[in-house]
Structures are given as structure tokens and as C-alpha cells.
């Protein structure tokens, strides 16, 4: 992991300036750092490892599904594969990805602060994350867990013979790293803003992270205590969800989704923040309807807590509860659509340049829209009964999580790469990779909509022969997608040593984080900046410094 996170030592004559990367040297200076930028890189390294590990399980799943017969792995093994894929991708990649990497790196710089409010807590959160990750890896190595990432009771509490407790403990621990990150962001945004930086001068990236942090703080404790209950039930033979004693497994589902539905917004809200920054910069336009976009983030966070029951339409929940949850779920579409429309309006008559981050932003807007619209299908009671637990659901949430969250993450990594590394990534390769990812993604997941609609259930390792063509398409797409994800890993690592030196503001962006050199000094700003205007003040005449 350190091989990925620790950039090579820059050659002395080229970069004489002291920055956060070369201020101190040695493993200790990284592992004991309190600099939010270095902690962001520690996170970058670890989430990358988990991303490719989770991806490996996806590869095995797609290989098994190449043929209708369950021939590559046993059904038990297959259960473990999709469980580990889900657990790792959700809890160890998607949730920490943008907040802990880009949010950590950028929020203090965007608000003109020297660091987050609690730097030691920030480092602690990374260690907690790493320890939680090790527990989960231990479970993977010793044979994995087979409950699905949802840990539904009573299977998880009573019947499963896999490493449920260890995995649950891993997720429980990692939850506290989310809580600490969210807490740190909230306190930082409240108390550390530079002089003149009022709430409505905050970049939308910060607003999005503020909304995300609210979910971290309000949601994560609930999943923690829920997994704790599952753990003690398994360990001490207590009977909290045990139907034999009158316990209610549906109650577990309520508690689980009370966090895990908002968790979807933990994944996608930060991405939306990234997209707001990218779209304005590369359209050379100010954001259309700043306050609407900012409040849409908060609205999504708040509404997100009121819709969990739409995962339980067929679980025996009361029909009236189902109706209410259905209506509330439809409401989430409003702030989401506000954002999509406002980004589109921002681009309208803008001077658009098709750089890599912008390509990802286009990808995000299109794919998120498809994911969101199919979410409306699933929020309708009647249709959900038909497609519940089919590949339609799988395709829908991958459009949100991969097409949305990861597109935003990739776009953000490219957009801020010059700031983070001080180097420019190779534009041609990056555009090519973005295109490969877009094509690969759609080929992988669009056929799954059709499969689900035709009735192929999720979580089976064998399927009827008539589904093979679509499954082969999906597996082929997955292999293209895999290549698309490997390319950035290669050229970004390459660019850390061989990339062109980045100027302070290669994109001609108006964000505060571009006011300081690339890479920034440890204290971010030589002088605490005084903010006198809005975060976006573009004019079409301005040109980029690079290109």
C-alpha cells in the first residue's frame, strides 16, 4: 500500500520548493503525520487496494456467470464471492473513497484553513479504517462470509457457518472511522472558515461534504449498534432478532436500511460535489442556481433518512408503510433532478473543454440520470414486486454507485491530481481510459436491466440458458471496465515521476485550493486568505494555463 501512497522523491533541482510531500521523509513521517493532505494519500493508497480486491471478486462473479451452468465455483463459494464483493466495495471503498481522500485533502484548502479541526483524530480515523479492513481481510483469507452484504437475520445470527462476527467487527470498527471523519468535517466547516468565507461562499464540494458528514454522523452509529446486536446474538446466544423467542428479523432490516439507504447518498453526494466543481471549471461558467444545488445536497441527506422502507416492500412490511415510503422515495428525485438540471444549465452556452475530468462529469450526469430514473421504477410498489431481487436492482444500484459515485471519484482524482501530486497526468491516455470505462460500464450493466426485467434473480450462480447472451455481454463489458480501471492506476503512478510539472492552477479554476502552489505547502497557505466573493466567478474569455 505504501508503494502506492508514497510518491517518489522529486529530483532536487527541479523542485526546490518545500511542499507537503518533501517537507519530511521516511515511513514514520507518513505513518505519524497529522497533515490532512498526507492522511488523504494514506487513504488513497488503502482504498485503491480495497477497490482492486473488491474488483477481483467481481471478476470471479462475472466469470462464473459466463455460462448458464454453475461450473466454475460451488454455490456456497459464489455466495461468498458476491458477499465479499459487496462488503469490500461498499464499506471499504465507496463510502470512504471521495470523503476520506478528496474531502480530506481539499476541504481545509477550500475553506482557507491550515488543517482539519482535529488532525490527530483524522489520523486515528485512518488507523481505525485500516484495523477494520484487516479484520475483514482476515475473514476473506480464512474463507469469507456468505450472508450477502446485508447480513439479514436470522441467517446471519443463527445459520451461517462463515466468518460473520469477524466481518461484522471489521465493519463496526470501520464505521467509527466514518463517524470521526464526518465529525471532523462538520466541526471544521463550522469553525475554521477563512475570514470572509460565509456559508454561501463555500464551494459546492464543501456543501456536498457537509451533507455527507451529516449522514456519517447520524447514520453510521445505527449500523454500528445493529451489527453489534448481530454480533452479540451470535456470540453469546442472546436472542434479539431470534423468531424462536418472539424476536423480529424484519426489525433488523429496518435498522440495517436506516443506515444503508442513506449510505447510498454517502457515496453519491460527494461525487455530486466533485461534478459541480468540474462542470463550472470546464464550462467557464458560474454554477446555475448556487443555492438550489447547495440545498439540494442537504435535502437529499435529510430525505435519504426517510426512505429506507423501500428496500422492504416484499418483506412483510405493512402496505400503508410501503405507500408512505414509496412517496417519500419519489421525493428524493426532486433535489437529484435539481442538480442534474442545474449542471446542464451551467453548461448551456458555456465554453466547454473536453478534458478528462469533464468527460467523467458527462459520464456521471448521464449514468446517474439512468440510475436515478430506474430508482423511481423500484420505488413504485407494483413494479418493485416484479423486479425485486432481480438483476434490475443490481443494474440500478451499479448505475448509481459505479456510474455515479466512481465516475465522480475518477473525475475528481484527475481534476485535482495536479494539486495532489504536483504533476500533470497524460491527457491522451486519460481521455482514452475515461472512454473505455464508459463503454465498459454500459456494456456490463445495461444488459442487467433487461436480464432483471426478464426475471433473472440476483445471487444465483446458475441461470436458464436463454439468459446467456446478455450475461456474456455483461461479462465482456466487465473485462473492458477492468482494463479501464487499470489504465489510470498505471499512468497516474507513472506521472508521479515522469509527468510534467503542474502549475498552481492548470485549469484556470477560481477555487481557493488553486490559489496555493501545486503541491501545496504543509500549511496550505502562506497567508490565511481573505475571501471577498463567490466561489465561482468565471468568464468565457479566461483560458486555461495548460493546453
Amino acid at each position, binding site marked *: 500500500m505504501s508503494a502506492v501512497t508514497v510518491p517518489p522523491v522529486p529530483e532536487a533541482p527541479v523542485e526546490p*520548493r*518545500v511542499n507537503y510531500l518533501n*517537507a*519530511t521523509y521516511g515511513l514514520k*513521517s507518513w505513518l*505519524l*503525520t*497529522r*497533515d490532512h493532505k*498526507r492522511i488523504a494519500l494514506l487513504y488513497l493508497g488503502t482504498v485503491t487496494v480495497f477497490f482492486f480486491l473488491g474488483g477481483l471478486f467481481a471478476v470471479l462473479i462475472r466469470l462464473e456467470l459466463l455460462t448458464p451452468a454453475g461450473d466454475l465455483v460451488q454455490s456456497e463459494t459464489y455466495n461468498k464471492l458476491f458477499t465479499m464483493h459487496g462488503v469490500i466495495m461498499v464499506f471499504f471503498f465507496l463510502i470512504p473513497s471521495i470523503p476520506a481522500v478528496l474531502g480530506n485533502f481539499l476541504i481545509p484548502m477550500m475553506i482557507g*484553513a*491550515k*488543517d*482539519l*479541526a*482535529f*488532525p490527530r483524530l483524522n489520523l486515528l480515523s485512518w488507523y481505525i479504517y485500516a484495523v477494520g479492513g484487516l479484520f475483514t481481510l482476515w475473514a476473506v483469507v480464512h474463507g469469507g462470509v456468505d450472508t450477502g452484504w446485508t447480513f439479514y437475520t436470522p441467517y446471519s445470527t443463527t445459520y451461517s457457518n462463515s466468518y460473520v462476527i469477524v466481518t461484522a467487527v471489521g465493519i463496526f470498527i470501520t464505521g467509527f472511522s466514518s*463517524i470521526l471523519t464526518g*465529525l*471532523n468535517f*462538520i*466541526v*471544521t466547516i*463550522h*469553525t*475554521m472558515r477563512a475570514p470572509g468565507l460565509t456559508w454561501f461562499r463555500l464551494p459546492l464540494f464543501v456543501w456536498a461534504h457537509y451533507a455527507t458528514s451529516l449522514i456519517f*454522523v*447520524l*447514520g*453510521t*452509529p*445505527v449500523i*454500528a*449498534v*445493529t451489527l*453489534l*446486536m448481530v454480533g*452479540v*446474538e451470535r456470540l*453469546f*446466544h*442472546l*436472542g*434479539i432478532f*431470534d423468531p*424462536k*423467542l*418472539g*424476536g*423480529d428479523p424484519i*426489525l433488523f432490516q429496518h*435498522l440495517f436500511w436506516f443506515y444503508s439507504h442513506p449510505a447510498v447518498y454517502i457515496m453519491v453526494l460527494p461525487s455530486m460535489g466533485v461534478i459541480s466543481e468540474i462542470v463550472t471549471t470546464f464550462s467557464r461558467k458560474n454554477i446555475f442556481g448556487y443555492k438550489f444545488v447547495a440545498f439540494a445536497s442537504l435535502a437529499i441527506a435529510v430525505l435519504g433518512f426517510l426512505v429506507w422502507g423501500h428496500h422492504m416492500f416484499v418483506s412483510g412490511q405493512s402496505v400503508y408503510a410501503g405507500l408512505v415510503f414509496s412517496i417519500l422515495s419519489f421525493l428524493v428525485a426532486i433535489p437529484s433532478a435539481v442538480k442534474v438540471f442545474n449542471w446542464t444549465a451551467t453548461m448551456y452556452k458555456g465554453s466547454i473543454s473536453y478534458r478528462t475530468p469533464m468527460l467523467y462529469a458527462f459520464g456521471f450526469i448521464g449514468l446517474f440520470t439512468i440510475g436515478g430514473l430506474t430508482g423511481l421504477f423500484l420505488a413504485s410498489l407494483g413494479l418493485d414486486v416484479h423486479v425485486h431481487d432481480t438483476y434490475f436492482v443490481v443494474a440500478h444500484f451499479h448505475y448509481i454507485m459505479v456510474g455515479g459515485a466512481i465516475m465522480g471519484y475518477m473525475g475528481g482524482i484527475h481534476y485535482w491530481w495536479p494539486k495532489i501530486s504536483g504533476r500533470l497526468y497524460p491527457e491522451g491516455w486519460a481521455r482514452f481510459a475515461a472512454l473505455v470505462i464508459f463503454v465498459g460500464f454500459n456494456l456490463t450493466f445495461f444488459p442487467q436491466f433487461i436480464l432483471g426485467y426478464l426475471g433473472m434473480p440476483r445471487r444465483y450462480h446458475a441461470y436458464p440458458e436463454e439468459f446467456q447472451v446478455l450475461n456474456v455481454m455483461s461479462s465482456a463489458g466487465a473485462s473492458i471496465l477492468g482494463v479501464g480501471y487499470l489504465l489510470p492506476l498505471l499512468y497516474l503512478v507513472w506521472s508521479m515521476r515522469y509527468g510534467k510539472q503542474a502549475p498552481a492552477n492548470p485549469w484556470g479554476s477560481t477555487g481557493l485550493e488553486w490559489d496555493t*502552489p501545486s503541491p501545496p*505547502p*504543509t*500549511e496550505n*497557505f*502562506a*497567508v*490565511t486568505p481573505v475571501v471577498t466573493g463567490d466561489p465561482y466567478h468565471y468568464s468565457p474569455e479566461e483560458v486555461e494555463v495548460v493546453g
Partner: protein
Amino acid sequence: MADAIAPATPADPGHATEPGVQHQFDTMEQQREASSFGMWVFLVTEILFFGGLFTVYTVYRHQYPRAFAEASRHLDIALGTFNTAVLIVSSLTMALAVWSAAVGRRKAIVVFLLLTMALGGVFLGVKAVEYTHKFHDHLVPGPSFHFPGPNPGNAELFFSLYFTMTGLHAAHMIIGIGILTVLVFKTRKGRYTPEYHNPIEVSGLYWHFVDIVWIFLFPLLYLIGRHIH
């Protein structure tokens, strides 16, 4: 306020204008605001954390009111009341410790912190006695659980919740005592002044919070519904 880019490194906090101000803050005021706000946010997460358990308790209590009342009568109300009193007094001594810190009476801080810890210890001791009684009475959920009344299954549900909720509360008490231990050592080293004592203040917030959790647990588990037959 930083006047040069170069020399500041993570190892060298630098730039602190007032003693006790960490490098990321400009003023003591900002630091104090951040740390107590941080603790309040943390307590919000704690409310949600316990909230999950309280929800489960409420649902089952609503579903099985008689069985829960019956099981509740097997708890020792005298010990529970005693423990409640102990915790309320410990909140008083904690508040006095914070007050002593604010007026700069170092010896008084140490005395009050130690008193608070001692009361916390008494609480945990009494709790251990209660747990032992339950163990002897076969009221610990599991294969050896035996409940003399009707609906033993639902009673086992009650005791599962009883042990999870009070156990989680006790874990918070143990963490609190650990934090106070650190504070005692730091106070004796003279780390805290009337201007800078927010660690004591925010630890006090935490201690009071844990007490308040008990104030909710006690009636829910011991008191409500004892009269139902």
C-alpha cells in the same frame, strides 16, 4: 497568520500565538469552540448509537408488554435505585471538577475527578453483583436460561436486551473512567489552566451523557410496568 511557507512541518507545529493553541487554530477561542462543538457532535452520534437499542426495546416492549413487565420484576429495584443515586452524585462531582478547573484550583480538580471515578467504580461493582445474581438465577440468555413465568421466550428477549443495553452502558462507563484517569495525570502535571481546560470540560460532557443514558435505562428496564399483572 503564518508568515512563511517553508519551515512548518507536521513535527513542528509552529505559528502558535498563545500557549496551548494547536497549529491548525488561530486563537484559543476558535480551539475551544471547535473542541466543545466536536464533543456535542460526538454525543449526537452516541444518541443514535444507543437509539438503535432503544428502538428495538420499544418495539418489543410494545409487542410483549406482559412478558416484559413480568421479566422486569426479576430485576433488583433496590440496587438499581442505589446505582441511580450513585451516578447522579458522580455527575455532581464531575461538574465540580469542571468548575474547579475553570477557577484554577488544581488540587480540587484532582479530588473531584478521583471522587467521580470512585463513584463510577461503585456503580460498576454493584452492576457486577446484579449480573452475578442473574447468572445464579439462570436469567442469562442462552442454553441455561430458565424463566419461571409464562412466555419464557419473550422474557429471554427482555434479558437479552437488558444485558446488551446495560453492558453497552457499562462499557461507556469504563471508557469514561479511563479518560478521567488520563485527566488526573495531566492535571497533576499542571497542564490545565483557567484559560485552557477544555479537555476537562468536554470529558465532563461525555460523563454527563453516560449518566443520562442510565437515567433512561433505569425506568425502562426496572420501573415501567411493574404493576401490570
